[in-house]
């Protein structure tokens, strides 16, 4: 599992090319950016930069939670990323962080 700093270092590398969306099962089922790897890691990036689960009390709604929590961790996105981001593990680690934050 990555810690929040490590997750941030990974997701910050995203260049927004979207190559990761092609094999993503949830993106292909729902055809919505938030339900693909690019959307998920960029949501995570903004949440971390806004202080979610850290110092600030950031409100997020169901759309955001659902998009991150529905990642299947199949890691097919990892095979596509030109920047070599560990997408699946970053999302998986952030899921745990969301649960910790909510259950606090």
């Amino acid at each position: 599992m990555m810690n929040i700093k490590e997750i941030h270092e990974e997701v910050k590398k995203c260049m927004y090319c979207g190559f990761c969306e092609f094999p993503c099962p949830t993106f292909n089922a729902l055809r919505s950016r938030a339900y693909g790897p690019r959307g998920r890691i960029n949501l995570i990036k903004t949440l971390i930069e806004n202080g979610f689960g850290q110092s600030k009390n950031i409100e997020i709604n169901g759309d955001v939670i659902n998009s991150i929590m529905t990642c299947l961790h199949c890691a097919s996105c990892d095979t596509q990323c030109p920047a070599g981001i560990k997408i699946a593990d970053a999302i998986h680690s952030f899921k745990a962080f969301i649960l910790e934050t909510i259950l606090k």
Partner: protein
Amino acid sequence: MVSMTQRQGDVIKELEAVFKDRLFTEPHILALYSHDASSEVGVKPMAVVQPVSVDEIIKVVKLAIDHGFKIVPVGSSTSLSGNATPKLENTVIVSMERMNSIIEVSDTDWYARVQPGIKVDELNLELMGYGLQWPVDPASSKTATVGGVISNGGGGMRGAKYGPASHWVLGLEAVIGTGDVIRVGCRTVKCREGYNLVQVFIGSEGTLGIVTEATLRLAPLPESFVGVMARFRSAESLVNAVIRVRRDKLWPMVTEFIDDITAQILNLEPGYYLWIGIDTYTGSEQQILTKLSGDISLSGGEVINRASTWQEFSKILEPRRMLYSATLKAAFNDYGTDVFVAFEDIAVPMSKLPEAVREIQSLGKKYNVRMNLGGHIGDGNLHPAVWARRSDRDEMERVLRFFEDVGKLAIRLNGTVSAEHGIGTQKKGLLREAIGSRNNGNSDTVIGLMRNIKRIFDPYGVFNPGKIFD
């Protein structure tokens, strides 16, 4: 007096009535649509909608006219020139992600009717079953949508033989800025019905309307395929080989290259690498391979790999396909996540290629920028990539000056400042210079015509403001 927030609230209510759960206003989700794959900085739009029908698109355009908000139509937002990046807060993003059906494929008439949200590779996978292809293949074909490629005038690796999107669209259906639906073009290759409004739309970067259906011209998949991967000591001899192949009247489908810096990043032996792939018919493979290999050795190159099928060629082409990854790898290695990466996109006439490659390399030295070079050399399309540390103002300044000078070089060599990435927000100045260079320094007349065309299609200024020209 009605406040801004109140007005925005009214718009959201009306959009909700049309789009229901396909309307997004959550700030984190909005941020996902606030920029594209270029370095252009955008703003968060007020809403994102995902239409599933032409009727819904007409409704959102009419709402935009009534309420005065702007629309930026997007596919996968993979633009490298900023044309899918919203610049104004009162923007509604119309995302075509869900309109992704193939409506019809005719394997007799060789056309396909598709919705704009289908990705290029998704379409081509389907067409393979018919022995057909839509031969427009930008490097982003896995994610780029057909609508985006049309609006961007995209090209790609097969462009050397097949040309860009403008060669492969027969007809379009679109919703224009009056809320009217227009259907232009034909289902035949020959089509002379007044002004060619299909071509006006291609490369218009979402400034004239929203493409809702495209009739695409198709080509048969090649019966047979041969290709080589060759190494050269200098860029000059590589370019000479490309010109020699051309003089021999061989017409490759793919002619790609990478420079010595990229080769080093990819752990290849030092040198400049060239890939040439030729579509042909069964029985003629050996003859073509012999001719091709001869051209390469006469130019001082060494053939490293040969392929006698498309599958084999795809395998040996892999390092070229890694150009984007190699650039990112080098950039991240140098500067970590504080990195700024940009990809140029010029094209020059083939006869000017040796000069262009030489001068781009010396511009790189002049400005002392970190760069690599590769591209679709078979149609004169070069993609120098540069990277810098974002927080280093001096280095950023040098990178921007390098970019500007590469554009000016293309103009001086009678080339173009944008071959396939478009103008967007990032090349508006260079576009003016390019047009001016062909019109005795006067760019106003031609830009004025473009502006007037925009006014006809989009009289209320709804679509993608601030792109292509001011």
